[in-house]
C-alpha cells in the first residue's frame, strides 16, 4: 500500500492477469468477446499475449468450461470468463458438478487448476440472468472454491491466489464495483482464499457482508457509530469460509446480521447461520438476522434497487437485533 496508487476494481483484476500471465506461460484466458473486450479487466490482453492465449469462443458455455477443464488436466492453467456469472448456469454440469468433483471422484490423483470468472450483482436493472449471484449454488457443490472481493486491493490478491490454486476457483466480482477505485500496490501479493478481513472494528454487533454489500454495511456502521459500534467482517471467500474470524468477532459483539445479496432460500447466509448455531451458539445474545434478496426472481425495471439489500434494510435489521 506504499505508493498510494489507485486502480479500479477491474483494473486490479487485469493487473493480476498480466502479472500471472507474464510469470507463468501455462495461464490463458478463454471466454466470449474478451479480446475486444466486453469489460475492462481483459482490455489489451490479446494484444500483449496473443489471440491464441486470450481466446474468444463462440457463445458456448459448456464447451468453454469443458475446454478449460481438459486443458487444466493436460497441464495448463485456464481462466474462463463467462462475462456474467449467471451465464455459467448454461454450463451447470461442467461448472457446478464436474470441475469440482473430478479430483475426488477420480481418486485425488490429479489437480484441476482453473479459474472461472463472472460478474454479478443486483441493482443494475438488467434482470435475472445478468444479476444472479451464484455463490450460494456454488458452495452447495463440493470441490469448488468461491471468492468475491469488496475492494480493488482484495481483487488483485484474491485473483492471484485463485490463479495459483491447484483447484477450480470461481471468482465473482460485482458489476456495480466495476470502476470503483481503491489503493492497489504494484508489488506481487496474495490474499489466501479462506481469510476473512475485518473491514471495520466494532464491539456491539457484527455484520458479515461481501462484495458490494460491504460498502452498504460500512455506510450503516458509520451512520450509527454514535449509538452502535458495528464490526464489519468480509469473508472474501465463501469456500473455504473463515469461520474462526467470524466466531472471534462474535466473542466480542454477540450479535450477528448477515447481508447476502443472493436469494435468501438455502443460501450462504443460511449456511453461515447454521454454522454459527453449531459452533458458536453460546456466543449469541440474540437471534441471527439475514438481509438477503427475497425469494423471488431478480426483477428488472426500477424494482431491483429496493429488493436488494440496501442500507435502509440493513439498518432495520441491525436495530431489530440490538433491540431483541
Amino acid at each position, binding site marked *: 500500500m506504499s505508493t498510494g496508487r489507485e486502480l479500479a476494481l477491474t483494473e486490479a483484476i487485469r493487473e493480476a492477469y498480466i502479472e500471472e500471465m507474464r510469470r507463468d506461460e501455462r495461464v490463458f484466458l478463454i471466454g466470449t468477446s474478451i479480446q475486444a473486450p466486453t469489460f475492462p479487466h481483459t482490455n489489451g490482453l490479446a494484444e500483449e499475449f496473443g489471440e491464441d492465449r486470450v481466446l474468444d469462443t463462440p457463445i458456448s458455455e459448456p464447451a468453454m468450461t469443458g475446454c478449460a477443464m481438459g*486443458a487444466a488436466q493436460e497441464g495448463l492453467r485456464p481462466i474462463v470468463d463467462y462475462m456474467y456469472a449467471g451465464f455459467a448456469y448454461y454450463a451447470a454440469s461442467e461448472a457446478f458438478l464436474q470441475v469440482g468433483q473430478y479430483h475426488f471422484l477420480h481418486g485425488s490423483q490429479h489437480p484441476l487448476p482453473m479459474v472461472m470468472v463472472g460478474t454479478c450483482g443486483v441493482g443494475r436493472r438488467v434482470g435475472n440472468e445478468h444479476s444472479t449471484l451464484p455463490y450460494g449454488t456454488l458452495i452447495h457443490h463440493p470441490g469448488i472454491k468461491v471468492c468475491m472481493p469488496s475492494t480493488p486491493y482484495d481483487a488483485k490478491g484474491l485473483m492471484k491466489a485463485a490463479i495459483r490454486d491447484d483447484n477450480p476457483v470461481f471468482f465473482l466480482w460485482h458489476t456495480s464495483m466495476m470502476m470503483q477505485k481503491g489503493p492497489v500496490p504494484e508489488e506481487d501479493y496474495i490474499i489466501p482464499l479462506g481469510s476473512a478481513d475485518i473491514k471495520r472494528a466494532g464491539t456491539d454487533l457484527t455484520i458479515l457482508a461481501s462484495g458490494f454489500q460491504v460498502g452498504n454495511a460500512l455506510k450503516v456502521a458509520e451512520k450509527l457509530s454514535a449509538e452502535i459500534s458495528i464490526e464489519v467482517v468480509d469473508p472474501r471467500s465463501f469456500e473455504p469460509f473463515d469461520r474462526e474470524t467470524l466466531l472471534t468477532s462474535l466473542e466480542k459483539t454477540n450479535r450477528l446480521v448477515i447481508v447476502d445479496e443472493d436469494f435468501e432460500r438455502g443460501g450462504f447466509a443460511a449456511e453461515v447461520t447454521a454454522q454459527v448455531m453449531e459452533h458458536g451458539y453460546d456466543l449469541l445474545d440474540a437471534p441471527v438476522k439475514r438481509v438477503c434478496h427475497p425469494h423471488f426472481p431478480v426483477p428488472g425495471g426500477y424494482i431491483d434497487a429496493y429488493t436488494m439489500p440496501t442500507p435502509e434494510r440493513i439498518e432495520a435489521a441491525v436495530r431489530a437485533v440490538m433491540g431483541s
Partner: protein
Amino acid sequence: MTLTNENCIELFRTLVRAMALDRVMMRLIRAGKLVGFYHEGGIALAPGVAAGFFLSKNDIMLPHYRAHGLAHMLSKRVDVKLYFAEHLGRVGGCCKGRSSYHASFPADHIFGSSGNIGANFPVSVGYGFAAKRKSSGQIVMNCSGDGSYGSGRSHEALLMSANWQLPIVFWCEANGMAQHSSMEKLFPGPNISSLASGFGIPSHIVDGQDLFACAEIAQVAIAHVRAGKGPIFVECKTLRAQEHSVGGVNKAGIKPRDPDLMRRWRAERDPERLAGARLIQLGLLTEKEITEIHAAADCEADALAEACESLPKAMPSIEELQSAVYA
C-alpha cells in the same frame, strides 16, 4: 491393407481379450458383484479396439462408455486390472473405489469419465487445445456413440475444434440406438457423420464389425490430425445386440427389438469370428492358434476378476474422504 501382419494378429488378440473381459463383467454383474451398473459391449467392441491401438501413451483418449471402455483402455495398453478393481469397489481401484465405473489413468492421458452422455465433448476441446498450445504432438481420440450427438455439447465441440483446427478424432461408434430409442427417430438422416460437413470437418464411414477396416481408418484419421490438418470424424457402424443396460428393457420406443435379428447379428456379424476367419484365410493364424488365443484371453479375464475380488472393499473413513476433496 495398410496393416502389417503383426498389427492384424495383435488387433485380433486385443479384441478377443476385450470380449473376454466383457463376458466376465457380465458374469460379475449378474452375480451381483459389480458395483453400479453395466452396459454390455457384446459384438460392438471392434471400433474401441481400433481406436486405441495406434495411440501412444501421451495421446489423450476418452473411452466410449459401452463395456465401460475396456476395449479402448486395453488397446491403449492401460492396466485394466485397476479398472476392474474400481468396478468391484476395491482398494487399489483406479479411483480408490470412489467412482464405481470411472476410468482414471492420468499417466496414460485418460483423465476420467462422466455419468453424463456428451460430457466427453467439451473436455476433448481442452485436450486438443492444450496439445496444440504446447506443440506436444499429442492427439485426442474422442470416442462416443451416435446417441451422444443429441447433446448440444457435441455441436459446440465440433465448432470449436474446427475453428481452432484442433487435433481431435471424433470417433463415433454408431449402434443406431440411444438407450431405448432408435436413432431413426432421433436423427433426421441415415449417417450421424453428416453432422461434420456443416463444420467443414472431413468424415469417413466404416463397417464397425470389421476390425481391420476400423483399424485402417483409425490409422488414416490419426495421421490426418497428427499432421495438423484439424479434426476428423469417423463413423463406425456397429450393432447393439442386447439391451442398453444389463437388466433393463430392450425396446425401441414402444416396440420390442427383434430377438431373431439380434440372434442373427451375433451369429453372422460377430467381429471376433469375422476377423478370425479373415486371419485364417490370409494364412496368418491357424484354427488351433485362434483357439489358444481364446483360451489365454478367458484365462486372463478370469484371473483378473479373481485377483480383484480377493482385494478388500474400499471403505475409507469420512475424515479421509473429507481431506480428499481438494488438491
